[in-house]
């Protein structure tokens, strides 16, 4: 890695929004007139076919196809920081299944070690699909109070690791990044709550959402047991619902996004009250 390059690992469970984030980022840094903390410097010798394909779908309001399950692609962008310094940023685009496997199978592909020892971690958690823990007694009391039928005794489900709450999986992932082969000492972590448009109605700041929807993760980070320098962001990289072309979906809400003058106006980046459309801000914070 050269002196002016920054290796950022984009980390997250399946469907956490990693690919959509990259698509919006690539579009925005190349969009004419966009004002961003990190701006486009130049094309390097890399192959931009993958990034261009992602950005094209994003602009059209079509959902990203899932990152291929086997292997990963490393995408590279040559950007310029606020003080004019060129920065080469490399993002290994790793399938989310590789991260869920770390929790469920308790092993790690050796090919991921270089990625996961990056000094900067961009961790995405889909705010719209957070699995909160719920308890039998409280669920039954709620059903009783609402006059709903109680669950059948025959419907028991055996334990499996994938049933764990989102916050437990994320805490364990961060713990794993701090031990043994992956331990590289203190690191910076940008925790991005993605699909922010889907949780915006709750009128919580990202920090408040962390403490109310992911309290175990909040406690873990605040305790300072592991040396993370962290910040939490809310990001809507799409701005709303996108269509699945394979299902022939057509939504008026997607048309409304397409009607915006600038495609990057769809993007919302929130950090404790301050809102912008600059999707490079979490990255700028990471490498600053």
């Amino acid at each position, binding site marked *: 890695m050269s002196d002016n390059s920054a290796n950022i690992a984009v980390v997250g469970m399946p469907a956490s929004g990693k690919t959509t984030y990259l698509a919006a980022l690539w579009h925005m840094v190349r969009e004419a007139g966009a004002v961003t903390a990190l701006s486009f410097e130049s094309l390097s010798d890399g192959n931009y076919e993958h990034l261009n394909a992602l950005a094209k779908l994003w602009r059209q309001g079509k959902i990203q196809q899932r990152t291929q399950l086997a292997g990963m692609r490393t995408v590279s962008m040559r950007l310029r920081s606020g003080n004019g310094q060129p920065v080469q940023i490399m993002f290994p685009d790793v399938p989310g299944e590789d991260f869920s496997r770390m929790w469920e199978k308790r092993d790690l592909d*050796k090919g991921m070690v270089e990625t996961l020892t990056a000094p900067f971690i961009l961790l995405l958690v889909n705010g719209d699909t957070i699995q909160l823990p719920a308890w039998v007694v409280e669920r039954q009391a709620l059903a009783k109070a609402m006059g709903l039928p109680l669950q059948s005794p025959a419907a028991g*489900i055996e334990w499996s*690791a994938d049933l764990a709450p989102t916050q437990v999986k994320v805490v364990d992932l961060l713990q794993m990044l701090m031990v043994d082969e992956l331990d590289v000492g203190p690191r910076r972590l940008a925790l991005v709550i993605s699909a922010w448009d889907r949780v915006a109605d709750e009128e919580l700041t990202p920090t408040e959402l962390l403490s109310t929807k992911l309290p175990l993760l909040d406690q873990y980070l605040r305790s300072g*047991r592991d040396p993370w320098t962290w910040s939490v962001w809310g990001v809507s990289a799409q701005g709303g619902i996108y269509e699945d072309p394979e299902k022939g979906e057509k939504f008026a809400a997607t048309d409304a996004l397409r009607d915006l003058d600038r495609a990057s106006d769809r993007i919302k980046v929130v950090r404790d009250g301050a809102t912008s459309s600059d999707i490079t801000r979490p990255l700028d914070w990471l490498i600053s």
Partner: protein
Amino acid sequence: MASQPRTCGNGDCNLATDEKCVEGYPLEECPHVGRISIEDIQEVRDDAEPTVIAETTIQLDSGEPLDRETAASLQRRRLSRAIGLIGPNDSGKTSLIASLYDLFQSGPVSGVSFAGSNTLIGFEKVCHLARAVSRRVKPHTQRTSVGADATFFHLDLHQEESGLVSFFIGDRSGEDYLAATDELARADEFFELRRADCVTLLVNGEQLADGEKRHDVKAMTPQIVDALVEAKSVCEGCRLAVVLTKKDVVIASPHVERVTREFEALVAQIKDAHSGYLGEIRAFTVAASPQDCEDVARGEGIGDLLRFWIEVPPSPAVEEFRSRAAMPRMIDRFGHDGEGDQ
């Protein structure tokens, strides 16, 4: 297809080239035809490189409860507390462990925050049957295997005033603890208690409210403590929490006052017998995994117990033991069977 040349097990025979048996037998009668000569067998070369299959994955921590060596290793990282949980089977030991962990799922407990754990898979497993995702009608907890060595659940906790503290909570089958009342020598096996900063004795509230079982509970509970103290399985000065479990069942029974009275008498009996040997003895009432939450909250009383655990001043024996923590043998941290107090 061309036929293969015939072979002979006799090294002097040239059957393969001249088609004749050196001993003069017709070929169909020769006992050596078709056998492999010893000279045909190639020697195995000792210097041949063994086939190496490249390992492509790295094994990560299992996340399961820890054995004593692993727990001992982790104990050295920071200030730690070892908690021994004892009680007859079905007194609620695993439910208590599961409930404490599950309370942290919703936020800090009594001002104490979760800071990490090496046994998240183990916690998730013991919590499953009380979680809605199990689709059960009533919460349930799996029992700990009888006869298995004790294992340890690990929690790193953070408190403003005391900073980070690692907790190691011992888990062993209730039947094994009861066995110590039959045969004192069995108490020597309880390495998880020998160096515990705080021992927590569970008294089954449901059984204390049950007319048929209450006298057994009243008789056996002090006998467990007697056996552990007699065998010096708990160290001198160790504090003891006596916990009445299943509060939800107790308050739903028609014998609330009787249970309360008899539990207080039980605690008083233990204090009378052992306050000279043990440190502070304090009573608690908990509802770790209530069957409904109309009259008690899930995890009620656990926070008070946690404060007792975290505030435990290490006993002199434990302090002496900590000074040995720099010893190279990790297994020493929880002591060997029969090692005793040294």
